[in-house]
């Protein structure tokens, strides 16, 4: 794995491109340069969707009020998501000549203290600080006793290309983007021929980050070679996988990196118009994108005669209306055209017949966000990272039962262990072990502990029965039932299947019926055989990607957690205590410390406890909500 080193060049923000193959390359950290002549302290607040959900809006008002009260002035900027969901809300503060300091879990309780220590006393608040970002290109006096931001375990092993500016720059500011190396890729691209650009992308080894992993250069070449002058470039920002939010982070935190990639793509294939198809569940992203498009037009990066090259492109946003299948490219095109988002038989492929019947190239947000860096630094530079078959980095939305959930970007080939244990900080509950990591959303699969040392890339995940998908990783522990997980995903697919083709529509519904039967304790042994059969049929015969991968969660459960499914069927038992009808909670007397923590959460007073007495569960009134199980720190309720 590439060991991160500090950038040493004079221009902080230019990544050194390797001169020859094999030169170790470095992805420098991004720092917002201190504005010339500015004296006022600067404050950045994490105000992406997740930051706002954690209360950033109220925090901003409190900061403003505090400043006013103390007759101080500061520049306050919103930033997107830096990836540390577990430490939200985040507030960064920087004063002139000192490093930027990132504060975690800021609340009304500690806000005043932080502001006072930092802005009045001239020291960083050690208790709340996460780390400091020392910009090696400015003479900054570091704070004593504050760790280096990038050396913290959560960031140490990450290599940020796509997310380099997320959470760092003001998402409303094109100037911040340009000051951190933005639009240099485009400036270089206008001097290159389309063959040269395609060649660099080819050398980079970049593959579609939407999940399928199709080589990007090839897609571009098809679209460029397609006949017709009227071509379209489309960005798929319909991030529908539950448990995935990496695209949202880019859209909200660094919208110009997407635009720059799209403009370069448009230039390469000769597109005149561009669409960004964004799901309606991301209202903030849409707002930020609209602002970014207007700014790019104003600066001449978008619109007529871009940077004097004679090339023109306009980009508009199409808002989705809530349909998961619209992430499939043909369905997406139909939706852009105002119709039901149904997939179609391919060929013709979008490269020859896409939006309004014209040649169209579709890439995912993350794919586009890689392009500018690839063009700027060269394909070899990008290909330095990654595994044999999957080059570069991949962002993952790491969620579920890990201590530090968040958004991470690591070189392809990083092991699941590194992701879960080093970056994710291990499992939430110490005593409840890792059971599986679910990759690729509803069409992915659950990989058990034996895959811990597997390097994550397209091929290794496919071999294991999962898929890369958009990069959602949900970590599950012993409290998660694998049969229920398969049922959960199947329920999702049944809801979202568009209904056009029978294998997907009926196959998924049948599988759901069987899985529901099993989780209700009415399963029969031959059900497993049936699931296997229907899975194979659905996979082989569905029209689009959605149906072809929909059985994956069932197949991986059959493959790795067969005994757990058998247990449900034969013993009518759910070892994870998740399937309501198969459980009866009891307090294990030996483990109960009589602490009483389990009593208050019980909604039906089924849990009886008196001081110094072992708790007791009344099965008549117990609704099996599991609140007591979750509340017990000693795992005494089973």
């Amino acid at each position: 794995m590439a060991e991160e080193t500090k950038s040493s060049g004079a221009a902080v923000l230019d990544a050194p491109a390797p001169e020859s193959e094999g030169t170790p390359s470095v992805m420098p950290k991004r720092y917002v340069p201190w504005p010339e002549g500015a004296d006022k302290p600067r404050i950045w607040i994490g105000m992406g969707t997740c930051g706002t959900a954690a209360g950033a809006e109220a925090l901003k008002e409190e900061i403003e009020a505090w400043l006013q009260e103390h007759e101080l002035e500061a520049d306050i900027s919103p930033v997107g998501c830096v990836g540390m969901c577990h430490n939200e809300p985040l507030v960064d503060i920087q004063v002139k000549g000192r490093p930027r300091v990132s504060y975690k879990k800021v609340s009304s309780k500690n806000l005043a203290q932080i502001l006072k220590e930092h802005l009045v006393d001239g020291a960083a608040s050690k208790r709340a600080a996460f780390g400091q970002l020392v910009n090696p290109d400015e003479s900054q006096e570091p704070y004593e006793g504050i760790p280096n931001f990038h050396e913290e375990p959560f960031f140490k092993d990450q290599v940020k290309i796509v997310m380099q500016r997320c959470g760092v720059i003001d998402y409303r500011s094109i100037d911040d983007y340009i000051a951190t190396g933005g639009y240099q890729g485009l400036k270089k691209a206008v001097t290159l021929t389309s063959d040269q650009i395609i060649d660099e992308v080819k050398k980079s080894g970049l593959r579609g980050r939407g999940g399928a992993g199709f080589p990007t250069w090839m897609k571009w070449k098809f679209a460029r070679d397609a006949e017709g002058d009227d071509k379209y470039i489309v960005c798929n920002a319909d991030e529908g996988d539950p448990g995935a939010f990496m695209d949202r982070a880019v859209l909200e935190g660094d919208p110009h990196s997407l635009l720059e990639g799209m403009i370069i793509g448009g230039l390469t294939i000769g597109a005149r118009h561009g669409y960004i198809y964004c799901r309606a569940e991301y209202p903030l992203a849409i707002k930020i994108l609209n602002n970014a498009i207007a700014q790019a037009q104003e600066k001449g990066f978008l619109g007529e005669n871009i940077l004097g090259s004679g090339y023109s492109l306009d980009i508009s946003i199409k808002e989705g209306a809530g349909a998961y299948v619209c992430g499939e490219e043909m369905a997406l095109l139909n939706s852009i055209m105002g119709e039901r988002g149904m997939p179609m038989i391919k060929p013709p492929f979008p490269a020859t017949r896409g939006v309004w019947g014209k040649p169209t190239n579709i890439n995912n947000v993350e794919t586009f966000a890689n392009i500018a860096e690839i063009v700027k630094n060269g394909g070899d530079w990008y290909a330095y990272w990654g595994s044999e078959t999957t080059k570069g980095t991949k962002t993952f939305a790491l969620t579920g039962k890990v201590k530090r959930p968040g958004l991470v970007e690591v070189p392809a080939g990083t092991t699941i262990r590194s992701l879960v244990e080093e970056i994710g900080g291990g499992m939430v509950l110490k005593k409840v072990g890792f059971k599986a990591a679910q990759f690729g959303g509803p069409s992915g699969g659950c990989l058990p502990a034996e895959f811990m040392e597997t390097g994550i890339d397209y091929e290794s995940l496919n071999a294991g029965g999962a898929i890369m998908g958009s990069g959602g990783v949900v970590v599950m522990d012993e409290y998660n039932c694998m049969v229920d997980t398969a049922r959960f995903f199947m329920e999702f697919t049944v809801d979202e299947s568009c209904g056009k083709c029978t294998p997907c529509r009926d196959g998924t519904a049948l599988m759901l019926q069987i899985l529901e039967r099993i989780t209700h304790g009415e399963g029969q042994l031959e059900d497993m055989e049936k699931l296997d059969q229907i899975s194979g049929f659905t996979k082989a015969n569905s029209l689009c990607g959605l149906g072809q991968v929909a059985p994956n969660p069932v197949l991986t459960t059959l493959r790795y957690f067969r005994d757990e499914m058998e247990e449900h069927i034969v013993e009518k038992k759910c070892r994870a205590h998740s399937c309501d009808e198969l459980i009866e909670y009891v307090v294990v007397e030996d483990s109960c410390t009589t602490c009483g923590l389990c009593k208050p959460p019980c909604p039906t007073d089924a849990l009886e406890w008196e001081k110094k007495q072992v708790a007791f569960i009344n099965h008549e009134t117990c609704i099996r909500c599991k609140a007591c199980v979750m509340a017990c720190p000693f795992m005494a309720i089973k």
Partner: protein
Amino acid sequence: MTANTQEQEQELDLTRACEIAEEEVGSQGPVIRVLQRVQAEYGYIPPDFLPEMAEILEVPLARIFGALTFYSQFYTEPRGKYVVKVCVGTACHVQGSKNILDRLKETLEVDAGETTPDMMFTLEPVACIGSCGLAPLCLINTETAAHMTPAGMVEKVNAIQERESAPVAEES
């Protein structure tokens, strides 16, 4: 479940909706855009508007109805004053969002997707809001509630009920 739908439909003025449709005549693929704009204006898409829309846009009614029913974000019935969304995405699911949804169903006495008879609450499960680090997550209109518990949500809903039933309840 909507007791006063009938009453509302009688007095519903579709002029603005028709204006929106007129504005989109001639634009490429207008169906979804018109539906989105009308919904933004009315809070839902009045079924009576659909035949008018078909006429204005010169698009078959079946195609409009097809698009309308395909997408989960279009509603053909008025919704409650407070839309309570419970995220049931993967990350929230593994953290127990089903329990929250179940408790809310009991408390509000409605099923998922339904509105209370007093038009106060609509309960809606949603698939992933994209803030999985804060799971389980709920939304009441636009206000987010992170790391929620069943009891916590019931408390929030009760607080709203109390506020709304107070004698000086303001009408919006």
